[in-house]
């Protein structure tokens, strides 16, 4: 069980590194699916099968497909990959990368130097999650419903295309026809 955890962790980290170094957006998204599937395996090993299924369905299914459809609507050409290569080249990544790695090293040092309790081997299935979700966390569920509603309204309002008027005479002829 420990070996599967380490292999899935290595796959997740490697796939995420591939995501953040690709020039082509579709390739990055395909590696992102691999990363999400590896994290789902980690969830399953940690005793959370319901959340593992949710990770595959919502993250690897819905969100990645939504981003892929948005990229298809943008209708990008080959120049986009070249532009991304130009933007990504150079030494711009050294400063943020080094500072983030320093912070990550500190975090790992703090985690390793403290006491290390074991993860409990009890599997928390969907029944426990549902009882907790609709018991003490019912206000959070209602707030999530409100958030999704505002998300739908916001996405519709922002994504609506304005009606284009080619010329004012053309608009007038349309009015005369009516």
């Amino acid at each position, binding site marked *: 069980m420990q070996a599967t955890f380490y292999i899935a962790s290595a796959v997740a980290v490697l796939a995420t590194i591939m995501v953040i170094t690709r020039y082509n957006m579709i390739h990055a998204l395909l590696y992102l699916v691999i990363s999400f599937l590896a994290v789902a395996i980690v969830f399953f090993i940690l005793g*959370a099968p319901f959340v593992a299924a949710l990770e595959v369905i919502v993250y690897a299914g819905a969100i990645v497909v939504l981003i892929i459809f948005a990229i298809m609507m943008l209708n990008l050409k080959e120049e986009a990959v070249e532009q991304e290569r130009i933007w990504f080249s150079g030494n711009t990544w050294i400063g943020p990368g080094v500072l983030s790695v320093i912070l990550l090293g500190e975090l790992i040092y703090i985690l390793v130097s403290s006491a290390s309790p074991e993860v409990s081997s009890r599997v928390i299935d969907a029944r426990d999650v549902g*009882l907790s979700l609709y018991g003490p966390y019912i206000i959070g569920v209602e707030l999530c419903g409100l958030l999704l509603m505002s998300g739908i309204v916001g*996405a519709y309002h922002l994504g609506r295309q304005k009606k284009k008027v080619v010329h004012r005479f053309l608009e007038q002829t349309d009015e005369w026809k009516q």
Partner: protein
Amino acid sequence: METVAVEYGLILAGTLFALGLISVLVRRNIIFMLISVEIMLNAAGLAFIVAGARWGQADGQVMFIFIITMAAAEVSVGLALILQIYHQLKTLDSDAADKMKG
């Protein structure tokens, strides 16, 4: 059944979060920044799951469900904003959107 130690799960979450942070700081393409934010949200959810598994309670998974809901709403609104920016500015450069001209 032998189990894993808590710190390895937290180290994995921290590593994924740092990778997403580096990407969101380095990239100029606005879609790549959105993808990096998704990676960071996923890493935060992983930390919640590890903590919930350490105490044997369902609270961590409840928090992950809230995070996944927030990520779905965020990505839908973010993609609508990206489509509008691309139609108006004809580029995906995040530096081109710094002029608020209404």
